[in-house]
């Protein structure tokens, strides 16, 4: 179990949160014009990185707001959290 810094509530226990998968996957602007390959890419294909990854999390048992996280998946170290719509930290 690790502590997560919610950008709205501050540091809380991980059990209050749920992970929502890879972040910054943009919903297609013209869904009707996508090919099946592009749909598959959008819906299913994931980077699944071993190392530093950008993710979405939600503070389910708290403020219920979604936010983004930079986390090292090889050792579960959280590098940063930031609000939805904000640019990811460069370092």
């Amino acid at each position, binding site marked *: 179990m690790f502590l997560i810094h919610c950008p709205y509530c501050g540091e809380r226990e991980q059990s209050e949160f749920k992970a929502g998968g890879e972040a910054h996957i943009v919903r297609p602007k013209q869904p009707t014009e996508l090919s099946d390959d592009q749909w598959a890419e959008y819906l299913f294909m994931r980077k*699944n990185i071993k190392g530093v990854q950008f*993710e979405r999390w939600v503070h389910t048992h708290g403020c219920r707001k979604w936010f983004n996280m930079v986390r090292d998946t090889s050792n579960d170290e959280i590098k940063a959290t930031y609000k939805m719509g904000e640019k990811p930290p460069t370092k």
Partner: protein
Amino acid sequence: MKNKYSIISLIKNSFSYHENWQKAWGDPEPKKEYDIIIIGGGGHGLATAYYLAKKHNIKNVAVIEKGWIGGGNTGRNTTIIRSNYLWDASAGLYDHALKIWEKLSQELNYNVMFSQRGVMNLAHNLQDVRDLKRRTHANRLNGIDAVYLNTDQVKKFCPIINTSPDIRYPVLGGTLQRRAGTARHDAVAWGYARGADEMGVDIIQNCEVKGIKRSGDSVEGVETTKGFIKTKKIGVVAAGHSSVIANMAGLRLPLESKPLQALVSEPVKPIIDTVVMSNAVHAYVSQSDKGELVIGAGTDDYVSYSQKGSHDIVEGTLNAILELYPIFSRMRMLRQWGGIVDICPDASPIISKTPIKGLYFNCGWGTGGFKATPGSGDLFAHTIANDEPHKLNAAFNLNRFVSGDLVDEHGAAAVAH
């Protein structure tokens, strides 16, 4: 030629204090080139190499393993074997494996301790009851033994379950597959390794793959910590690290790697002679031959390669175990560990060719790959040898995520994800 294991060889070796047993597999240096390289020396990878040599007569094969064989998810699972899956494609795949399991110890001359003690899946709410009845009917249409049990029959089959109606999630019924059971997971890896080694397969341990060399649309070889090895065909069976290997080849997979935990208790006298699984409250338990309770917990919901899971997942599972089996309330847990499982969006595996010529993937087994080990190896060997899938794994192609022809087994997978 390997010496045959038998009661006679056991007696013979006891006279030399068991110090002169023949090595079960060698420790070769990699050759410059192989016909086929298998990345990943777990059960599935070793089985693939074994069947390539045995059924397809391709013996210039190497299995490359970054740690030691069977040290990943093969040695971390809860050893449950069953084939009661919902869809025809899955039923074909998993029952193919179960049929091989039934003869595996004899075939390998290695005791994998396959024990058909039955697997019972419990229903705790009306939807569970409907789903499990539907699955029982589907299983029987596919020739898989399955029966539906009511609460009294569940109690009769496994008397230590608390079937009182006033627990938080009462037991409303369950299904039973009697041909299902458990096996000793290490022995499966070791048995296949010994068999493959005997036929000339090189098992190369402590050798990590660092890159996949491509020329245009086909593969040329693998970069490893022991140097470059040339090959025209690569079979990747890297479980939780499948995406890592895929990224090396510039391929994307529909996988997420997540920690799945298990734990064992102190050993006690025989108390539960079957496997009981419960999807709804997420608890499953069996007893090992040493007497330990083997308990499977759930997956965490985040991507991780750390082989550690969250503590609250274990706590949730143990809460459910104690509600269902009050008799275990004073048991102490001895060990807890995590494995990294590669989960597909439809909870079914991928045994497939890829857009890159000579590159094959066997992945996405998620939380339930152990049961399929022999069948998976057999079908993957067929796919690599013929450059075409066998009819039993044709549905488990990578293209199903484009065509939409998914094989949704979230219900039968029995581990909520």
